[in-house]
């Protein structure tokens, strides 16, 4: 067991992901030096601000949303499908959970479960609609999922401004959920049981990816869709199932957002932090691999939360962390050409028969 694991470590260190992250940090440091700031102090503030006693709670609740959305995007991405409608699916999940929470006649604990299920169902159904648009009408998934997202967020916006608006409030928000209709939190922190649900989802994804026939089919579809089709993997069905799963997790994230602080649906509160896009970035960074998606989500959550505290303590604007994120992605996007060059020199003697 020892050798494969050390192999794995050296491979991970040499991987383009490590390279991109390090390159991002180095270039970020150059920016900091350029503006006269101390890079060590700034990075130190990011780390202590996000992982220190004061920040870890905020980081973990950010992880809940970022990891959730990253999973939602990674699962179809594993088969080469891109779901750009995470925002819409998440918001519908949130509004469905809010409505269920407000109007369910059941006792509070059951209402919570019901609200979660409502969120999951709403997200799944809406994402499935995008899949059907591709399967039935040939609208590319990229387009159908992205465009369906806007009416969903607009609908939620309308609902909380008019029919569901909290009476007397000036904000576009629903009433607060009844007492007890909330996910249990850990101690006094803002970290809720939602984190556990998301981690469970990640575990299930890891298991399915590595150890089930469907996970195998998904991976092979991602690596070569024609190969999968040749062996009988039915693409339309797979698209539908993957999108439904993806939307279900996005809806779950929305429901968790409503069943945690502020315990209501506030227009824009789910979409404004950009979890969908951070999640997409994390999924891309990890090439949708389960473990990598978890690590990347954690990394981005640390940057997001740590950036705020860096701004407070060192006067370096938190936008720097966004610069870091962007640099990491740019380096990763450059990966194909760069690894292709390396691979070429390695493989050409082996694959002699075919000219490049």
């Amino acid at each position: 067991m020892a050798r494969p694991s050390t192999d794995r470590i050296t491979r991970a260190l040499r991987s383009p992901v490590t390279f991109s992250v390090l390159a991002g940090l180095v270039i970020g440091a150059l920016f900091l030096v350029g503006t006269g700031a101390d890079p060590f102090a700034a990075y130190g503030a990011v780390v202590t601000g996000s992982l220190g006693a004061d920040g870890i709670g905020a980081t973990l609740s950010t992880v809940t949303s970022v990891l959730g959305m990253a999973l939602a995007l990674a699962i179809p991405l594993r088969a080469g499908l891109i779901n750009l409608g995470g925002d819409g699916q998440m918001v519908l999940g949130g509004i469905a959970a809010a409505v269920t929470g407000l109007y369910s006649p059941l006792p509070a604990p059951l209402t919570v479960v019901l609200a979660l299920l409502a969120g999951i169902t709403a997200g799944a159904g809406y994402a499935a609609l995008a899949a059907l648009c591709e399967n039935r009408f040939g609208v590319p998934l990229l387009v159908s999922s992205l465009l369906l997202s806007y009416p969903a967020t607009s609908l939620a916006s309308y609902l909380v401004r008019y029919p569901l608006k909290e009476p007397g409030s000036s904000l576009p928000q629903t009433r607060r959920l009844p007492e007890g209709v909330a996910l249990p939190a850990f101690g006094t922190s803002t970290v809720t049981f939602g984190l556990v649900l998301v981690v469970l989802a990640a575990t299930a994804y890891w298991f399915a990816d590595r150890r089930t026939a469907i996970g195998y089919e998904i991976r092979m579809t991602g690596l070569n869709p024609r190969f999968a089709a040749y062996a009988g993997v039915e693409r339309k069905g797979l698209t539908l199932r993957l999108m439904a799963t993806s939307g279900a997790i996005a809806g779950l994230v929305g429901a968790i957002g409503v069943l945690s602080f502020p315990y209501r649906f506030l227009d824009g509160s789910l979409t404004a932090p950009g979890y969908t896009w951070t999640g997409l970035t994390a999924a891309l960074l990890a090439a949708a691999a389960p473990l990598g998606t978890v690590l990347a989500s954690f990394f981005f959550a640390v940057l997001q939360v740590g950036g705020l505290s860096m701004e407070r303590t060192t006067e370096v604007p938190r936008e720097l962390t966004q610069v870091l994120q962007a640099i990491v992605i740019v380096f990763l996007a450059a990966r194909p050409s760069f690894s292709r060059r390396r691979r070429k020199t390695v493989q050409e003697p082996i694959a002699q028969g075919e000219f490049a």
Partner: protein
Amino acid sequence: MTRRPSDGPAAGVDTSGDAPAVDSPPVEAPAVVELRGITKRFPGTLANDSVDLTVRRGEIHALMGENGAGKSTLMSVLYGMERPDAGSIRIEGREVSFGSPGTAMAAGLGMVHQSFKLFDSLTVAENVVYRAEPRRFGLLDRAAARRRVRELAEEHGLAVDPDARVGDLPVGLRQRVEILKLLHRGARTLILDEPTAVLTPAEADALFAVLRSLTAQGRTVILVTHKLREVLEGSDNVTVLRDGRVVARLRTADTTAAEIATAMTGRAVDLDRVHPEGSPGEVVLDVEGLSTAGVRELRLTVRAGEIVGIAGVAGNGQSELVEALAGLRPVTAGRVGLRGEDITHASATERRAKGLAYVPEDRHAVGTAPAATVADNLAMGHHRTTLASPRGLLPPSAVRAHARALVERFGIKASTPDVPASALSGGNLQKLLIGRELAHGAPLLLVEQPTRGVDIGAIQAIHDELVAYRDAGHAVLLVSAELSEIRGLADRVLVMYEGRVTASYAKSDADEATLGLAMAGGTAEPVAATATAAATAVATPAPTAAAPNTPAPDGD
């Protein structure tokens, strides 16, 4: 272009004879391409080990070797795609160092790659002049481009319509476009990489006639190939590579196929083996009036213990037929029966479950996922059946054990099952693919082009596997562009032309001339020879219209 006597130590150039004769290859002609001591090392491999190659003006020089022998690397070095670690290159007597194919082209070299580099949506003329366009006021002068293509085509006997869209042309004509492209740019030495892989015997003959006329004009041709027949018929000299070294330099006139094959493989090989016939049993595959895009009212049957070969020029519906049988292409009319069950509209998965396995033509794009591991590639199709638990679990240990067993059984050369399939050579990848499909033990096996681009050693192994599979009582439908393969393996040969089976022959009657004629749409013996064959695969009336020697493009 300056030509001066070489001062290289081992060149031995004689500048006396400068005018090559047409018929007898000019042995004394000056060297056009001289590679000396070319060494190219890749991590872990010595791809070229001090290779010398001399190609003289006006000759057709065949460069032969199995996959991995280093011929591709050598041509990459010559064409400026790779830099050698050591050695020198002289072109027409001048020492050169190419940084890119562009500089190699400027020095008069041109290469036709195995996969053509053409724009399908552009016309022939546009493709030919690409990157060397005749201009007028800074814009492409289309009239001049068309004129230029016509002139070149006429001059070299490469008839092709300058206004045709390349995407609409059959493969043989696309190859002409590639050659015209090189001639337009003034290439004096043409490198052709496996040029006949996609051609019928007649088209190949036509290609060699063109090459002959080019060499008669003083141009030089380097032919990279592994086909012995055309090397013997079409080349003047042969250089054989094995394991990165030159193992033989032969004058074609003085050598034999066996000698070249022995040099290539390093052991004596039995060429053109004809396997004994099988003993057919019950009908396994029964196709009645099948129509789909490119296939019209096709009838055929394949019995257990029988290999039925489908011969035909690429593009006459063979791929479509096989895809329709495999469930990857909808059937518009007719009926397909597998062991008595109607599978006309069954999905690919259902067909596999009912006993069908399939080796597709394109092993990189369809038959495997090159980026996935060998183990994952070997698991495909088995991942829902033998390897999975009833609940859909697929334990990685089972996948790896399965892979190890198949690697062992089919002699696939892979260091571990965890390397990506893209690291395997063409022959090994094909063994992987065939091994995976044979391992299903399905009553019906569809095989397309089982040995395309595969070296001789692997070809024999693959043929033996297919015959053993037949002898175990399975039905095999074989589609191949290699007539020798069809004749060696098939118990019955059907010829497809324009989407129909136009002729059927028993093994003993399927000689190359007869098949070649039928493949071109000719109808010397319109309907099948023997009674047994006729009973199962009757030709619909063969088109009697004058058949061009190039295949007609599909109906669209």
